[in-house]
């Protein structure tokens, strides 16, 4: 009987240790072992001194698509730090008349990158609570985040969204978040379809 307690104790310790390694140790390592700096988007985003031009995603005039806007963001040497800057810009309230596909107040709680090219983006619960609940907007919320990371950081192939540190089935009942999602530009319309009002807003944003 007593031996059994010993075994449970040992198993518990092993489990606790593995959990620490998985959830605290590993995530801690990844950001400090960045992929080469050259992986930061360079093809279309011209690296201009201390800035990169990153494409972020907002809701089109008719509400039926995402539109991409290039925004100037602070350049980071580390991949994880760059991803964080991009995501924080994507989550931030955009200047009018741009409309964010992400409920306001949503915070980036944590970000983990794996060597396989997956990013785990941990968001605060506002992403669920403040959501309109429509499936199309849920697709826009999810793919704005997935595309913002994968478009601007090509070495990241897929993004899984977590909420309050937990895996979730969906945000509001439609889009499957049980696995990392690849970039998907089906939800994004061509830039020439965007309105002039939004383009002039963009000019302001990039100042």
């Amino acid at each position, binding site marked *: 009987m007593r031996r059994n307690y010993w075994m449970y104790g040992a198993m518990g310790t092993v489990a606790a240790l593995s959990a620490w390694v998985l959830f605290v140790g590993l995530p801690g390592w990844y950001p400090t072992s960045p992929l080469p700096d050259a992986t930061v988007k360079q093809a279309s985003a011209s690296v201009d001194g201390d800035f990169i031009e990153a494409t972020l995603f907002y809701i089109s005039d008719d509400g039926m698509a995402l539109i991409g806007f290039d925004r100037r963001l602070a350049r980071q040497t580390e991949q994880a730090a760059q991803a964080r800057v991009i995501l924080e810009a994507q989550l931030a309230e955009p200047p009018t008349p741009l409309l964010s*596909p992400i409920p306001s107040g949503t915070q980036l709680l944590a970000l983990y990158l794996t060597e396989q090219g997956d990013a785990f983006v941990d968001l605060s619960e506002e992403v669920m609570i403040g959501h309109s*609940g429509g*499936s199309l907007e849920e697709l826009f919320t999810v793919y704005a985040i997935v595309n913002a990371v994968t478009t601007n950081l090509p070495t990241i192939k897929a993004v899984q969204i977590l909420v309050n540190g937990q895996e979730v089935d969906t945000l509001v*009942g439609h889009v499957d978040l049980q696995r990392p999602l690849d970039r998907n530009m*089906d939800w994004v319309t061509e830039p020439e379809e965007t309105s002039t009002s939004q383009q002039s807003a963009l000019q302001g944003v990039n100042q």
Partner: protein
Amino acid sequence: MTHRLTFAACLLLLAAKHGGGQVAEAPLILVSTDGRQSVPTVSFDGRRMVNVLELAAPFDLTITDDRQDSRLSILQDDQVIVLTANQGLVSVAGQLVSLPVPPVERSGVWYVPLDFIGRALPLVHDQAVELRRRSDLVIIGDILVPQVVARYRTTGPQSRLRLMVTPATDHVIEQELSRLVITFDADAIDLVLPDVASDNLLTRLSGVETDPALAIELGESFGSYTSVREPAIGGGIELVIDLQPTTATTTSILPAPVPAASAPAAAVPDPNLPALSDLARPRAIRVIAIDPGHGGDDTGTRGPNGTLEKDVTLGVARRLRNAIESQLGLRVVLTRTGDTTVALDERAAIANNNRADLFISLHTNASIRETAAGAEVFYLSLAEYNEKASEATGQPVPVIGGGSRVLDIVPWEMAQLRYVNQSARWAETVADELSLRLPMSPRGIQQAPFRVLVGANMPSVLVELAFISNADQETQLVSTTFQSAIVNGLLRSIIRYRDEVTRGVPLSDQAATSPPDKLDTNQR
């Protein structure tokens, strides 16, 4: 078949044993703001009666049988109705109400005459209760029930149907296979039909049990119809429908079947995708699973006037169930029948456990842009599950007696992967039929990684009926006309899909697995 006969025989025996001369009669239809439900009636010595237990739920009655002195007490809140067997006088909240015939008690089951509903229940129910015997309707609360009186006359080669509708009510005429259905924008209709002798143009007139609608069964020489609406004396309208026979020059108004060639032709199958999505064979359509989106704590989206998605989806699902059961005779499974919270995976599991042959999830959309409008049909996209899909296919497995064979192992929680091509056809059919009746979004048909579809082991679609965030569409979503259009579109798509499967029409080479053109539906 034998089982069914035995079952029917048992029912008959039971009925004979308990009935003591009772004969089943046409049901009463109870119409309220919550919808329609039917209540069976029976007759004793030619008098139509209804089992009081059937009235308990619709009128919120609590029934206590006091066996000692052959009385039945019925409670509604704190008001009491007391029935006494074989006495035509009933005590209703302290008042005496007389019934044309006394209640009947048979083996502990109490039956009351129909007038009990019209005379006793209004005294205790908190809403108006009206019994319309001519049309077997019970109208509960403040709802719109116009009277529709039909007359039919044949003149020469054509014939004319006149409908007097009082008060004036909007209507929609739709052709479904060999019948015309006239649906009124009302909660129910009080229908008065003539005895029609069947002819070559029209074989039968009847009410549609589940809808405020009149069905005209068309004869073999029917070719086309015209309809005119005119104001009538007394504030009503007269609807004149002329039926014309086919001639060599008259073209049929039947919707032309959509040729396979109209499917997007440019699509090329992705060579990287496994043939997994072709693995499942199409099977006969016997059971339809309807998934009313959201429910319980999960209200779904909310319209600017407060309409909740969970209520709209449940309302449409119930109407669709009634229409499928009564018009197609197929079994229908709802993933929720009330306002309850049901997990996404459980919804697919309910469909799987009931061996449903088609799955349809009903939703309403929302957008931050108030003008966004239109219906959308989704089926599962494979791309997100590609890795798992590749892992799951083409695994050679050794077999007894030597050698090996390739086994298609699909993880149970991703059963839908095997049906994506069939789901694509099912989605095309649904989008086609809806686009004839409803405004469609510019993205009429799409693929997305929707959780509720992943586990479904049958061709499956998710339909966004309209944008509830758009005030006009919110109003439409709760109207009878719009809901009837949805139900008719979905009903018609089930018929078409079933017919194609029955005839063995092969899946066209349209790339079900590649994303459809966004503007596809608009251009068609």
